């Protein structure tokens, strides 16, 4: 968990971690691709996989989070949870050293997000070693004490 006091501090923190893969509100999914394709495209590029192999990887990740229903949907049809999952998996499949979830309250406005984040990250254990959540200090009470 990273707590920041204001927007400037948040900006500075993001800039200090250039190696981190961001999951953020202002980095949308590719609108004309389905969730599955949005995730699969990363290994297609990074590892030069065929679409089928890349899609298998993406599907497996979705399956681990129980979100395969949304695999063929495109961005406007997604709920905020599905959209968040897609963005998160797009970062996970890249296998970056750090995954930085920026302001989860903005990404997941409709649910009590701290427990959801916890279960999601646990489900992905092994694929994201260093996953950090960046949130404002005033949201700290929402999180369960560790």
């Amino acid at each position, binding site marked *: 968990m990273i707590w920041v006091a204001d927007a400037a501090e948040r900006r500075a923190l993001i800039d200090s971690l250039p190696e981190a893969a961001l999951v953020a509100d202002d980095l949308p999914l590719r609108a004309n691709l*389905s969730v599955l394709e949005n995730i699969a495209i990363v290994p297609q590029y990074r590892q030069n996989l065929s*679409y089928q192999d890349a899609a298998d990887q993406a599907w497996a990740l979705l399956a681990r989070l129980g979100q395969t229903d949304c695999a063929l949907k495109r961005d406007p049809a997604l709920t905020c949870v599905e959209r968040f999952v897609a963005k998160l998996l797009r970062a996970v499949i890249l296998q970056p050293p750090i995954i930085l979830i920026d302001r989860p309250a903005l990404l997941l406005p409709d649910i009590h997000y701290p427990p959801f984040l916890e279960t999601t990250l646990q489900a992905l254990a092994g694929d994201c070693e260093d996953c950090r959540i960046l949130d404002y200090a005033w949201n700290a009470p929402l999180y369960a004490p560790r």
Partner: protein
Amino acid sequence: MERAPVRAPLIKNLELKVGLLLVATLLLAVGFLLYVLHARGVFQPTQELILVADDAEGVNIGMPLTFSGFPIGQVKRLDLTEDGRVRIHVAVPLKDARWLRTSSQFTLEKGFVGAARIRAFSAMLSDPPLPDGAERALITGDAAQDIPVIMARVKAILSNVEAMTASDSSINRTLAHIDTLTGRMTGDYGMLEGVLGGPDKAQKVVHALDRANTLLASLNGVSLRVDQTLAKADQRVFGSGGVMDQTDRSLAQVNAILGDVRESLKRADAILLAAQAAATNVEAITADVKGATTDLVILRTEVDDSITKVNHLINEINRKWPFRRDVELKLP
């Protein structure tokens, strides 16, 4: 591991359709390229025929060589020789080469509208076939081609006319001469003065003519009298101081006068000739001169007339009185 479902069937048979389109395009492109190459005769074994022409205006690459209206060859290349003639390389497919014989003629025809045509004529198909690389002259027959030649000639003519009309040209000088000539013609003695070069000389001619006329009248009288007296008195005639003496003197006189006339006429003739020559050369400006020469011709006829009369008279005298043969009159 669970397999991902096949891609969403957004587009059915995407790969197949696009593949079909690409293969069709590729095949058509290659096919068309081959067709054009074939049409351009790339795949046909050909033999070369070189046509040499002075001017390859209107000949372009790809132009057909026709025989009896059928294309049997194509122009492949044009180049210029050292002496400025054009060598037209024609490729003739081997299967069509049999229409070309050693005796074949080649013509280039051009109309005012439309492309030029190279045609082959083979009158004797029994002659030996034309060998590969043969060189033949290309005969050009062209309506438009003559125009530049004609233009060149017209230009030459125009420049001649220009030289003629220049202030110091010979024509102008001639005209000036004619001017003085016609000036003289307006003198007292008109044409004669003009022709003979001065009033005094013209006067002489007129006098000579007058004298000839009077002489003729008197001779007429004489011959009448002679006729009357002939039968009566032959001795009188032949005696001294007789008619014969008179006649002799008259004849000598006539001879002298006629000699004068002849001289004058010779000169008039020369001038007349010169004037006529000048008149033919400068047709355009010669209305005056023509008139003048017509006058001269009339004068000449008059003089001739008089002389014929004299001649006639003398012949008559000679016939009637065949004496003094040495007194001979030579008429111009």
